[in-house]
């Protein structure tokens, strides 16, 4: 996650980098010891601060999880022409290739316990957990494709939609409703905690709980404008029923879409480098996301890769 230390992108001048370094100290995000460890170099210091925050929340192995990078930057699009502002910087987390995993076997096991369990798990792990911050490609992309084809309403498209629909299991059907938290946990506690299935269900519950307080990251008009000309995000994770399901096509489409122009970053946390409180809040948020990454990695380590 912190692979190349010298790839920090700064569009702004040294005084601004120094201002951020001071805010990190004043906001209690980084320490004198980290300043010394960074050999009194502001850039290294910022790197140490970000790494320190993320490792404190997500563990020392946080950089091993998924294909992800985390940087502090002065511009969302380094090729863009937007005028840079002194009071705006970003923590960006992004990747450019998805970790492709097969979850179908676990979904089948869950469906045997309750037909609504796979959907409930998916909502916790993806919709309200990892997928809130990172682009995940899964059956929902296929469902969206089906809707588009059906809207076109032509014979060939309808046939294609029908074929895609047939490939999706009934337990992920559009009409399926999720279980309540209570019912979910009742099933979870009925399982032996040593089983992989119990661990996966428990982790999804925990991921949802940890992700909830992070809140939605609000972007203002300035940031929205910077993103306007940028393409979609690169997917970070894809969840497949089996090796040759329609999710694979959806992954290709998502990657192609991201490659059309400069891709939007997955996670964007704007902050004001001149304001210690804003810096503290942004780095705190990065820490919370690191925790979600670490828990999600624990979960996904139990899933086989596609084609494995």
């Amino acid at each position, binding site marked *: 996650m912190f692979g190349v230390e010298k790839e920090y992108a700064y569009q702004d001048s040294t*005084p601004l980098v120094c201002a951020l370094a001071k805010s990190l100290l004043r906001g209690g995000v980084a320490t004198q010891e980290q300043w010394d460890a960074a050999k009194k170099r502001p850039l290294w210091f910022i790197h140490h601060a970000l790494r320190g925050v993320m490792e404190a929340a997500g563990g020392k192995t946080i950089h091993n999880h998924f294909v992800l990078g985390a940087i502090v930057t002065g511009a969302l699009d380094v090729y863009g022409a937007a005028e840079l502002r002194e009071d705006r910087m970003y923590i960006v987390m992004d990747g450019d290739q998805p970790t492709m995993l097969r979850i179908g076997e676990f979904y089948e096991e869950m469906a045997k316990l309750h037909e609504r369990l796979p959907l409930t798990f998916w909502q916790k792990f993806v919709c309200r957990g990892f997928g809130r911050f990172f682009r995940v490609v899964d059956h929902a992309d296929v469902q969206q494709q089906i809707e588009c084809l059906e809207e076109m309403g032509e014979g060939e498209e309808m046939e294609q939609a029908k074929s895609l629909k047939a490939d999706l299991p009934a337990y992920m059907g559009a009409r399926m409703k999720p279980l309540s938290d209570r019912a979910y946990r009742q099933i979870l506690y009925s399982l032996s905690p040593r089983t992989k299935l119990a661990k996966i269900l428990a982790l999804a519950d925990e991921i949802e709980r940890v992700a909830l307080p992070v809140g939605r990251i609000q972007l203002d008009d300035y940031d929205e404008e910077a993103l306007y000309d940028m393409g979609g995000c690169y997917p970070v994770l894809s969840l497949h029923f089996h090796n040759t399901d329609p999710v694979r096509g959806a992954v290709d489409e998502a990657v192609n879409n991201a490659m059309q122009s400069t891709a939007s970053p997955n996670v964007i946390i704007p902050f004001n480098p001149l304001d210690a409180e804003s810096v503290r809040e942004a780095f705190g948020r990065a820490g919370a996301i690191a925790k979600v990454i670490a828990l999600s990695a624990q979960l996904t380590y139990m899933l086989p890769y596609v084609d494995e």
Partner: protein
Amino acid sequence: MDQLPLFPELPVLPYAEALRDVDEIAQGFQNDRGVQLIAEFQSCKPLQHASEIFIKAASHVVADRFPRLFVEGAQVRLIEPPPGTLPPLL
């Protein structure tokens, strides 16, 4: 009667030394003559125009004197850091 000092001594911040170091770096950067020259150049349109003329003229000189080195379309350019790189601080 105890007297309260009018300007009580502030407790020393645990990161005071780091703050001082950072201030010195920022100050040093602002006082750097090279940095000041770039700022002056960027704020002066006639100077930028003159620079463009010089670049074109220099390109021709290079092309005439070193025809083997000249690559079609190439120009002598002011060396500027690409976007995303830092000014020469570290």
